[in-house]
């Protein structure tokens, strides 16, 4: 692998007091793996008041980091954690995708056609910058203990937790965890220690992935080509990143030699055709194949898998790291609630159910995209080529062209939701993250809905306008209250439109900003029942 990447951040190993105790120290939560997913989980838990130990086998970030596309939902989660604005300011914002056949534009798609969302459809940002922002934030949290050069070498499941053996520069030590979160990636050590099967489909096609440094004024769009003249017979993908870095992805076919293809002169020969007269420097090159697979279960007693340790997809669609961060958010509030005695034990089961549903959706999209890009046989290729050749002439065929369906959050079919008693239109969905909406604060300052949520159970109540249609929800035990019309003003009417809001309507929001119940009028008893249900009590 060519790696002349400059931005690598180093951190110091520090000996922990847990390495010197006579008895094995016990911690409520240990997270293994300080990638984006493990960091997000650890930060979320720590900010919910749960002390967390986060261990990582390395002492640096920036190497082997491949993710670049961060989706709107991920940015909303990161904004709740406190780093969203920093990342958006740093990243390259985009929302347009273009698909070419040969060198002709076939169609373009807009991933966020409506206004009034705080976060963009996507930003592109090198994964190490995102990790750096999360590490900076983690280091500010006094109840988050981040331990570099702590490598998991042993894992023993127990009824009430897990016993870890951790290797350090000072030798190994043991640590007990009430709960272990395995965020240690596609080659998860934790998964191997538990002997879990990681079954699915491996695609034989090989892809060249290259980051190049280049001053170019190509558009800030996702551009995908089927059979371009500059890379005959295969597909190509180009993305812009900050620092004049461009990501180029070239399909090489099943017979490519991964070692030979990484030789700089071979890479340059391919890239020269793509980039034509633009001078460029190679920053990072890799050749990969990919898998679509998942664990049968994500929850194994007190050991819980998140991110790539639990599931893997192909990169087309940006569904890997984004879905991992969504795993982290789904688990964090549930585990915090269980540790505080607020949530029933079935709440952890709901992580399994909801995130397996999301993983299957991601694997389904990813598999279908890959089948379209890399047909398995001549007969399948004929069908694919027929779609591409009809596409300029027929809308239905354009809709079948699949260069990757980009990450959107799953809509959970979940027992945590209270079914609607009355119909609701709009874009808000039970079991989905709330759609954002532009609002004003009572002092007139412009704001957005999601940044006003407090990361706990919360009811959004639409002011009744004085009509005697039941009382406004005064203090309801442990549930935050936001009144549209008092606390937040819907001058543009976008909240009303997206939530199909009517005077007196009430919306119960989970700590992960997902809608779990709604009513046309406020009823404190129904609200409490819905909250109990969402906590699996």
């Amino acid at each position, binding site marked *: 692998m060519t790696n002349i990447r400059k931005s690598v951040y180093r951190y110091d190993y520090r000996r922990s007091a847990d390495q010197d105790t006579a008895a094995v120290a016990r911690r409520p939560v240990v997270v293994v793996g300080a990638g984006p997913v493990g960091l997000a989980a650890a930060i979320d838990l720590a900010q919910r008041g749960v002390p967390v130990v986060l261990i990582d086998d390395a002492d640096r970030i920036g190497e082997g980091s491949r993710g670049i596309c961060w989706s709107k939902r991920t940015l909303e989660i990161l904004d709740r954690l406190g780093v969203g604005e920093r990342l958006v300011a740093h990243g390259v914002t985009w929302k347009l995708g273009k698909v070419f056949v040969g060198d002709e534009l076939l169609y373009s798609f807009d991933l966020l056609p409506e206004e009034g969302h705080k976060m963009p459809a996507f930003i592109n940002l090198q994964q190490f910058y995102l990790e750096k922002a999360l590490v900076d934030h983690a280091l500010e949290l006094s109840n988050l203990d981040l331990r570099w050069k702590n490598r998991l070498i042993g894992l023993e499941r127990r009824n009430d937790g897990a016993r870890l053996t951790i290797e350090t520069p000072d030798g190994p030590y043991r640590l007990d965890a009430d709960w272990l979160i395995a965020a240690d990636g596609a080659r998860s050590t934790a998964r191997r220690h538990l002997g879990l099967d990681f079954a699915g489909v491996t695609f034989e096609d090989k892809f060249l992935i290259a980051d190049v440094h280049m001053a170019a004024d190509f558009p800030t769009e996702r551009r995908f080509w089927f059979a371009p003249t500059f890379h005959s017979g295969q597909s190509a993908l180009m993305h812009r990143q900050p620092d004049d870095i461009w990501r180029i992805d070239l399909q090489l076919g099943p017979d490519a030699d991964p070692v030979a293809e990484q030789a700089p002169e071979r890479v340059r020969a391919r890239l020269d055709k793509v980039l034509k007269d633009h001078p460029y420097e190679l920053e990072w090159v890799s050749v990969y194949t990919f898998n679509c697979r998942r664990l049968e279960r994500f929850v194994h007693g007190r050991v819980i898998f998140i991110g790539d340790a639990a599931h893997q997809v192909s990169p087309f669609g940006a569904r890997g790291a984004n879905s991992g961060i969504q795993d982290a958010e789904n688990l964090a509030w549930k585990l915090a609630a269980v540790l505080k005695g607020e949530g029933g034990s079935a709440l952890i089961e709901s992580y399994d159910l909801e995130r397996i549903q999301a993983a299957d959706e991601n694997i389904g999209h990813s598999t279908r995209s890959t089948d379209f890009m890399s047909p398995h046989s001549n007969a399948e290729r*004929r*069908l694919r*080529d*027929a*779609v591409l*050749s*009809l596409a300029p002439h*027929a809308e*239905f*065929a354009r809709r*079948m062209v699949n260069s990757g369906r980009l990450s959107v959050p799953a809509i959970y079919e979940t027992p945590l939701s209270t079914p609607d008693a009355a119909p609701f239109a709009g874009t808000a969905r039970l079991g989905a993250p709330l759609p954002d909406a532009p609002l004003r604060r009572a002092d007139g300052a412009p704001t957005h809905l999601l940044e006003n949520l407090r990361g706990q159970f919360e009811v959004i109540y639409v002011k009744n306008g004085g009509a005697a249609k039941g009382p406004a929800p005064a203090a309801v035990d442990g549930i935050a209250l936001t009144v549209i019309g008092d606390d937040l003003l819907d001058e543009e009417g976008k909240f009303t439109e997206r939530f199909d809001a009517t005077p007196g309507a009430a919306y119960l929001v989970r700590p992960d900003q997902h809608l779990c119940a709604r009513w046309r009028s406020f009823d404190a008893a129904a609200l409490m029942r819905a909250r109990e249900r969402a906590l699996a009590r």
Partner: protein
Amino acid sequence: MAKLVTASQFPDPDAAYRALVEARRTLSEADAAELDTKLVLILANHIGDPDVLREAIALAKGKP
């Protein structure tokens, strides 16, 4: 319940068959295969019903 119509619907079935024959009369095997593939896609979309499509696939594969 079957949704796929297998009763004859063309007023003149011979003429419909003839149109399909003429479409491929001068074509090579590869070009005819391409034509058929496009026709499948166009007609499948025109029907627009995934249940009918599944039944049609089953019938074509000899598993009605």
